[in-house]
């Protein structure tokens, strides 16, 4: 059974009623459990659980230190191209936005890679908009060939691919996949993706499964917070991660809880997701999946990121830039505004100050 079918089981589930019947005693009992069910996880995402954040944080901290140690993996995103044929209403790269379009050639890519590699980072996440004409798999493959000289781990955050295409990129040296479903609610998804191949909800939802079957080593999933009720989106993200871990026990599963940021097009979040909400989500997920990775990007502001180090986060981006060619001086428009603008040494110093170690290399493509 694919995750699409798993997800269907909740189509008529009344989340509000479930949240209403959760009691303080339920939350206390769940925090004390060593293994949580999906219903326990949902309870920890409820409004009722908000007053137990400190208890959840203490446990989340202990579990994270136990399973991951006091270390935070650092990586950085590298935008290859911003051509896109989708019309996602919230995205700065969507086709109707009047921004300068750019695609790195391999020489420009090498220059960007050199600049990033000089910071010591070994994990890179490459991104593109969705355009099979401008950024076909063959282009991604050529980019990976260049990047292998500089980095020991290469992840992709690109449009969903077929299984054999994932296999092709894995054989070229890709070992990680990030793909956000954006919205797990299929109806809301349809409203937010009015045109373009991204309209195909199921093809995107099942992309991580195809990548895992193709032999991907690490997979990161998430919902874009601000597009729909964060509690249910966080729930489905956790279920998705849990499904992937159960179905493909050999892969490293992570989630990201990205919040919408200002971007070209000026889309306003439909739902406000506060810092407190974000923290509740991170803590609930940590208690649900003690060995699941949690990634926090530079979408979040510096002060908040500093505090999140001790609450369950395992990976952080550093020295980010969302513009194509932005590091080597090309002045294109970024996909969204980043919030934590510190460079890699500054982030590393912050992590040390929290009593943790920044890790620059944690995988080597075999």
């Amino acid at each position, binding site marked *: 059974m694919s995750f699409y079918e798993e997800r269907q089981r909740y189509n008529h589930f009344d989340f509000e009623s479930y949240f209403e019947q959760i009691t303080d005693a339920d939350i206390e009992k769940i925090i004390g459990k060593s293994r949580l069910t999906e219903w326990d996880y949902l309870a920890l995402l409820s409004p009722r659980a908000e007053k137990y954040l400190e208890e959840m944080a203490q446990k989340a901290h202990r579990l994270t230190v*136990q399973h991951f140690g*006091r*270390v935070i993996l650092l990586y950085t995103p590298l935008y290859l191209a911003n051509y896109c044929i989708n019309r996602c209403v919230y995205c700065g790269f969507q086709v109707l936005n009047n921004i300068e379009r750019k695609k790195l050639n391999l020489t420009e890519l090498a220059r960007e890679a050199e600049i990033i590699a000089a910071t010591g980072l070994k994990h890179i996440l490459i991104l593109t908009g969705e355009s099979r004409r401008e950024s076909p798999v063959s282009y991604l493959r050529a980019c990976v060939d260049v990047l292998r000289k500089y980095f*020991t781990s290469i992840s992709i955050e690109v449009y969903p691919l077929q299984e054999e295409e994932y296999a092709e990129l894995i054989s070229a040296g890709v070992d990680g996949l990030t793909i956000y479903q954006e919205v797990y609610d299929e109806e809301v998804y349809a409203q937010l993706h009015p045109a373009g191949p991204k309209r195909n909800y199921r093809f995107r939802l099942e992309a991580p499964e195809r990548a895992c079957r193709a032999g991907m080593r690490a997979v990161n999933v998430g919902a874009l917070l601000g597009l729909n009720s964060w509690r249910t989106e966080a729930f489905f993200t956790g279920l998705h991660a849990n499904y992937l*871990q159960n179905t493909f026990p*050999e892969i490293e599963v992570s989630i990201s809880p990205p919040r919408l940021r200002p971007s070209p097009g000026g889309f306003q979040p439909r739902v406000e997701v506060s810092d407190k909400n974000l923290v509740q989500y991170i803590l609930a997920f940590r208690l649900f999946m003690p060995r699941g990775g949690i990634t926090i990007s530079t979408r979040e502001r510096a002060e908040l990121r500093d505090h999140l180090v001790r609450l369950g986060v395992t990976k952080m981006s550093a020295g980010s830039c969302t513009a194509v060619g932005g590091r080597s001086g090309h002045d294109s428009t970024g996909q969204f505004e980043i919030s934590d603008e510190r460079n890699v040494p500054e982030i590393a110093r912050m992590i040390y100050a929290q009593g943790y170690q920044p890790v620059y290399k*944690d995988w080597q493509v*075999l």
Partner: protein
Amino acid sequence: MQDVLTIGGRELTSRLFLGTGKFAANKLIPEVVKAAGVQVVTVALRRVDPEYEEENIAAYVPRDCILMPNTSGARNAQEAVRIARLARAAGCGNWVKIEVITDNRYLLPDNYETIKATEILAAEGFVVLPYMSPDLMVAKKLVEAGAAAVMPLGAPIGSNRGLKTKELVRILIEEIPLPVIVDAGLGRPSEAAEAMEMGAAAVLVNTAIATARDPIAMARAFGLAVEAGRQAYLAGLGETTVYARASSPLTGFLRD
């Protein structure tokens, strides 16, 4: 006579091996090694970065220690073999701890793939120490495959749950002609001492030391516990019985 553990032709007087994956700073590693008198340190090759000396975990292992790269991240024998070869090519020596894990929830080892990797690497001249679920038949196959020691888990990695596999480890110690090194799960010095009292050749500890409030003091405590447990084993523990055995028997006056 000095009590020496010999593995792969190297003589070791310390029976505490150190894992390095979870420390808050690499610079703690030399101090921990010193506090506990450790001679064998395992590092994940996935964390070794020879090009970036400042953050290279291997650079923090004192030179007089044996550096034992592990194959953390390997999902099958083939990957473990490739990692081991990469480690040797990177100058990490010929000791290798085989870790083949296909279960990311509990990090339990895949014994079948571990045997295959051991066979290949031992034939290539590596000193192979396989991390394994304690199973006698698997351990016997690892002996045949050319392992230099076997490393059964006490409990899942990082769990600090102690010697949950005690009975199975005891059987390995009795039946296997190689050093049995209890790896993973030991959370307290007393548990390390218990493993040593049973006759384990050594123990490997990471999480319990690295995540302690004071890792250096905890390393010292583990070092002492391992030594105490070893001394107790060598001294010969008294038998345990269900009934009391009085030092001054009540029926001692009876003669045949």
